[in-house]
């Protein structure tokens, strides 16, 4: 074994490097969770005592409550509307060739590369020109545009994996196109639709930059409320909310990994 010792040293170094990078990824989450339990009203390290009061304050803070409510409303509407629009377009793109299909696809995928501040600014200016006030409708419309590419992609990928012979069998047995769609295509697509909706919902709930442009005081979503809080106060209330956020997200991902196989969803593993 010519490489024996060298190889082992290399492996060890690689492992250490990976652990260091994972530490870098985890560091802010760990630090903010520690800060959340601080007993002082300014951030300080090392902490001097332990308290739950910032959690109580975060949960009772009015702007966070209304931001959470607004965020859930926007998230539910935006991802549901995007799901309907996205699956329609995905099915059309998958099945038919029609004039302008490439243009339509490029337009709907554009929000992946156009900076969100440009999109937010555009929606704001457009609303002003049309005389539309900064209502929830405007926020929902902006979010639909932003999350649509992800839904489109998710549904399109599951359509490609769908066995077309099942639809043909139903059609050859006399089912009209509407019935094929409703009883064969859509049920088979269900996992892809659910995945696309979930992804859209998470992105919408967390969307900040575009939301900052199109929300007003009354319609602000949770990320905007958090940003405004950090600008005004320096106490660990925001740390407590961040800790809750991190705990819930990590839990959701662990569950998703257990039941869905995160690797498969993200296309890192395939066909084992």
């Amino acid at each position: 074994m010519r490489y024996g010792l060298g190889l082992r040293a290399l492996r060890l170094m690689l492992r250490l490097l990976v652990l260091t990078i994972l530490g870098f990824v985890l560091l802010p989450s760990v630090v903010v969770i520690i800060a959340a339990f601080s007993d002082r009203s300014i951030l300080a390290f090392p902490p001097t005592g332990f308290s739950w009061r910032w959690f109580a304050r975060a949960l009772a803070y009015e702007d966070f409550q209304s931001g959470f409510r607004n965020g859930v409303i926007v998230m539910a509407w935006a991802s549901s509307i995007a799901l309907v629009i996205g699956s329609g377009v995905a099915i059309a793109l998958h099945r038919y060739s029609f004039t302008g299909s490439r243009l339509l696809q490029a337009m709907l995928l554009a929000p992946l590369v156009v900076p969100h501040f440009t999109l937010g600014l555009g929606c704001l200016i457009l609303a002003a020109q049309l005389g539309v006030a900064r209502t929830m409708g405007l926020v929902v419309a902006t979010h639909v545009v932003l999350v649509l590419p992800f839904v489109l992609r998710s549904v399109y990928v599951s359509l490609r994996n769908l066995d077309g012979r099942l639809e043909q069998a139903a059609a050859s047995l006399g089912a009209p196109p509407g019935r094929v769609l409703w009883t064969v295509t859509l049920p088979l697509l269900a996992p892809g639709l659910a995945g696309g909706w979930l992804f859209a919902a998470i992105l919408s709930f967390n969307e900040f930059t575009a939301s900052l442009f199109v929300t007003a005081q009354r319609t602000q979503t949770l990320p905007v409320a958090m940003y405004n809080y950090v600008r005004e106060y320096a106490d660990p209330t925001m740390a407590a909310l961040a800790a809750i956020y991190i705990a819930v997200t990590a839990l959701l991902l662990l569950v998703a990994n257990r039941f869905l196989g995160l690797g498969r969803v993200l296309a890192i593993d395939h066909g084992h």
Partner: protein
Amino acid sequence: MRGRPFLGWFVAPGVLCALGLAAAMAAVLQYAVRAHIPGSLGVGGFTLENFSGMLRPLYASVFLQTVQLCALTALFSLLAGYPLAHALVHARSAAWKSAVLVIAVTPLFLGEVVRTYSWLTVLGNSGFINGALLWLGLIDSPVQLMFTRFGVVLALVHVTLPVMVIMLAAALSHINADYLRAAMSLGAGPVRGFLTVTLPLSMPGILAGTSTAFAWTFSAFATPQMIGGGRVNMVSNLVYQLGFASFNFPFAASLSVVGLALAAAVLALLRLGTARLERLA
């Protein structure tokens, strides 16, 4: 299948959405060539003054800084992401693999504000790093990490890392393991095998990851805003400031237009350069 049943129904909502997006982009373009009326939200006649105003050193330096920050972030994100993606794809135990995956991907779902705020608790003058260094007696007074380019890049790398890892891992997992085995059996060591087989074959993932990291960083707002604190500015911060502090929406729009063109140009150059590299290799 005969005919195209329901085509109109499938496509109409999408077309409507695309038209809305096109209208929003057109609104930005149109505002970019309108005059600003100080103290009013309305706009004046057509002008190119917004674009000539951008030639002032203040704005030119922000553009330059934005491109530099994006490039640095993409580079460090690649350097940190590659080992993680490699470990993810070549993990031997399932537990290690899912641990790496969940840790690497969780930040993606936290949102920019929560992540950036968390970095404030790390980088602040009374934050974790300074607290630790003071406690260890390595420094006497806090080191300034906030409002520096170092701090901004560190947090931006953290933001783009998950996407980089996902894209690299997807590319690495598609490489046929037989190629590396063939190289090793022909006498190549692990380092040479990696440099001559794995690395070139993962080039599509590197390209996709780097350009996505670049584009994401260009789009970043909360991170440079909160950690840069007005001292490290990117185009996004200037656009927001001009819009919501000076109510100069025409100038904000023209900055977005130039920013978008600049980002597209850099990405196209990156793609061109890599294509040439691949042909040479």
